[in-house]
């Protein structure tokens, strides 16, 4: 960076989708306008996501000779003040979250007034993290191939094409212990080896960026923040298996990721890092992007292939696996975004380096999205083997203010809900599977005492029912019947026999469905039955929802002692069920109330009570 920007201040603003959702574009505009107004000369760029979404919008300022500081929770006004301070040659301490040391510069020393600002590695959110997949996310301009190269990008590809045989690459990946990060956990090197030995031509490599699990957004982040790491990994994979073309299948809901990966591909082509004769080695490789169209099942590899081929995204039975019989019947490798971003790091630093991180059989790092009812939300990359407790209470800093964390949901609709009493479990493929959940693609949704676990199970069944492609009967019909039973339970209409039927159905769907979607769809039901049976009992036997969520089982009232008559609840009630005079206690008409709890959420006085 000091070579790229020797004497110019460089400011980068976190502008992945999450940053933009927090208002980063307004902050960016304010920085630009104020710098122009003051005639302050700087390089102002957008970057991706540094992971600490809770602190967005984030602004990273690098001042030659002064240092590099990350500012958090910025507003346009704060941005203008920041520029004013910088233009007088100061790095202000206000809103400084952390300082970022730079490996290649002489800006290590911290000015005295910033001595209280911790290093980024000292923040509790980051102390346990080890960034490999996210090594560049939020630190570089995702459009700049120069910045990617400045941080050791393309060393792996040059080593691969100039010094390694395809077997060497496969051996390196095998020895690293890397397992598929899309959730399956299959050893990547082994998969490549199978495909490499196939004789069919041509071969293909596909990057699966159809990140459909609700609660997971790491693939989007990598594509938006560091697209070259994926391109480089794919090119290495193509060389290893003998493929000259690759496809990136991105889900439709990620327009920014699609734009950024397309721009990065075009730029890599321009630089000769994609196309013919890469590094003069005789190896040709090209990548095309395919935009999905909103079908969860397309994340399943055989469905994804069908979708690229131009048909419906319906899965087919495996074997044969795509490594033997994939796109247009040809040998095809499908790897997740994070797997490919890991590949480029592994080939650059070596298998031994990677295999020393994590634990035996679970080497390397995994990226999780820590979201839901947790104090620190964001993307977290940790070595495998950390416990759930270290993740949620350490990195996540526990639940929301004053609320007790009850469970964590891992693995999306295919995963399960694990109770707080199991938080000593280490996070790895096997431990989570044994507990009835899965690691999946890395979504971790934290739930607290205000979350109803029966309602959550019903939420997931609603999801899988809607996303079932309908090809096989167990999944198509089974998820629908399970959803109907769960609906009876949350409405207080169920009998104890319903739970027996629910469990039977769950096992039947799990054992007889065609693809992973159906085989794992019952997991949210089975885990909540296993760990939160008391909540099912309360709904069925006592017609009570302990969390105060299920509408048929709760009532809302306003405590006249606490209500100050501000009228906010009256204004926000979607059905006009609240009445009252200004500055006098308000009243909810129980006949009109739909128990949506909006009044409860907006009341600044805590005067709206949920009667369970």
């Amino acid at each position, binding site marked *: 960076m000091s070579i790229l920007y020797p004497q110019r201040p460089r400011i980068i603003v976190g502008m992945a*989708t999450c940053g933009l*959702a927090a*208002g980063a574009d307004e902050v960016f505009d304010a920085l630009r306008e104020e710098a122009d107004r003051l005639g302050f000369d700087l390089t102002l760029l957008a970057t991706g996501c540094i992971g600490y979404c809770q602190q967005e919008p984030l602004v990273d300022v690098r001042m030659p000779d002064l240092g590099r500081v990350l500012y958090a929770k910025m507003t346009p006004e704060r941005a203008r003040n920041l520029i004013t301070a910088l233009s007088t040659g100061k790095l202000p301490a206000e809103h400084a979250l952390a300082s970022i040391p730079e490996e290649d510069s002489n800006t290590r020393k911290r000015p005295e007034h910033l001595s209280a600002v911790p290093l980024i590695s000292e923040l509790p959110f980051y102390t346990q993290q080890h960034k490999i997949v996210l090594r560049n996310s939020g630190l570089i301009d995702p459009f700049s191939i120069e910045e990617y190269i400045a941080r050791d990008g393309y060393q792996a590809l040059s080593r691969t094409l100039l010094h390694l045989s395809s077997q060497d690459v496969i051996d390196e990946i095998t020895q690293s212990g890397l397992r598929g990060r899309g959730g399956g956990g299959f050893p990547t090197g082994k998969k490549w080896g199978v495909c490499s030995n196939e004789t069919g031509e041509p071969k293909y490599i596909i990057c699966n960026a159809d990140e459909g699990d609700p*609660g*997971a957004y790491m693939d989007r982040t990598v594509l938006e923040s560091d697209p070259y790491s994926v391109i480089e990994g794919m090119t290495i994979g193509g060389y290893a298996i003998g493929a000259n073309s690759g496809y990136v299948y991105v889900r439709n809901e990620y327009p920014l990721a699609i734009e950024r990966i397309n721009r990065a591909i075009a730029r890599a082509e321009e630089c000769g890092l994609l196309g013919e004769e890469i590094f003069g080695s005789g190896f040709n490789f090209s990548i095309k992007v395919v935009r999905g*169209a909103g*079908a969860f099942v397309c994340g399943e590899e055989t469905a994804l292939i069908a979708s690229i081929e131009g048909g419906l995204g319906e899965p087919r039975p495996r074997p044969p696996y795509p490594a033997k019989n994939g796109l247009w019947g040809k040998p095809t490798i499908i790897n997740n975004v994070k797997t490919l971003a890991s590949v480029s790091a592994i080939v650059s630093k070596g298998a031994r380096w990677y295999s020393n991180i994590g634990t035996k059989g679970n080497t390397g790092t995994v990226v999780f999205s820590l979201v839901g009812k947790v104090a620190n939300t964001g993307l977290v990359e940790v070595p495998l083997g950390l416990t759930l407790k270290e993740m949620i209470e350490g990195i996540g800093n526990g639940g929301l203010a004053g609320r007790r964390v009850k469970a964590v949901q891992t693995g999306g609709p295919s995963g399960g809900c694990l109770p707080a009493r199991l938080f000593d479990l280490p996070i790895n493929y096997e431990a989570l599977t044994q507990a009835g959940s899965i690691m999946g693609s890395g979504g971790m949704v934290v739930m607290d005492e205000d979350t109803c676990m029966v309602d959550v199970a019903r*939420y997931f069944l609603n999801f899988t029912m809607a996303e079932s492609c309908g090809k096989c009967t167990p999944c198509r019909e089974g998820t629908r019947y399970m959803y109907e039973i769960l609906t009876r339970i949350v409405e207080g209409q169920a009998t104890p026999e319903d739970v027996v039927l629910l469990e039977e159905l769950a096992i039947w769907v799990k054992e007889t469905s065609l693809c992973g979607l159906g085989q794992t769809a019952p997991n949210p039901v089975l885990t909540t039955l296993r760990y939160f049976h008391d909540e099912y009992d309360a709904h069925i036997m006592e017609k009570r929802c302990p969390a105060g969520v299920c509408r048929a089982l709760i009532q809302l009232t306003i405590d006249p002692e606490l209500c100050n008559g501000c009228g906010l609840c009256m204004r926000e009630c979607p059905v006009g069920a609240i009445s009252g005079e200004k500055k006098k206690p308000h009243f909810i008409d129980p006949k009109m109330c739909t128990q949506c709890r909006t009044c409860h959420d907006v009341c600044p006085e805590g005067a709206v009570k949920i009667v369970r």
Partner: protein
Amino acid sequence: MPIIAQPVHPPAGALLAKLHAINSERGYLPEEDLRVAADELALPLSLLYSAATFYSAFSFKPRGLHTVQVCMGTACYIRGGDRLLEKLETKLGVKHGETSEDGVFTIDTVHCLGSCSMSPVIRVDEDTYGRFKINRIPRVLNKYRQNEPGEKGPGEQET
């Protein structure tokens, strides 16, 4: 020479790309455009119809000027996304999947926008609004109605 010619497959992703192109130009998939597309791709019209109904991104009904997507991902759901939807539906007088009478807004639900750290989240066209509070709905809608003062941008800052 084989007696039955081997089918030539269309280029990868060609069908989806075509449907996306029609959809972004017209806002939906009109029948006449689908017929032309089927000819161009040399694919049966029935396949285009199946694909158009299989994928949630496409619609046969004309849509509003702006699309409001309410995220129903897990994090958004447990942090009140369903209630945002309910409020929006009563405010615009239509259910999700429908278009307001003035033709300005279509409400959609989406299974996850991938901005889970900012939950609950809504998206209007390509603008994503995070940490969304229910009382921001009128301001945000006004921003997309012409000649009405609205909220300046997506951000709502926490201090």
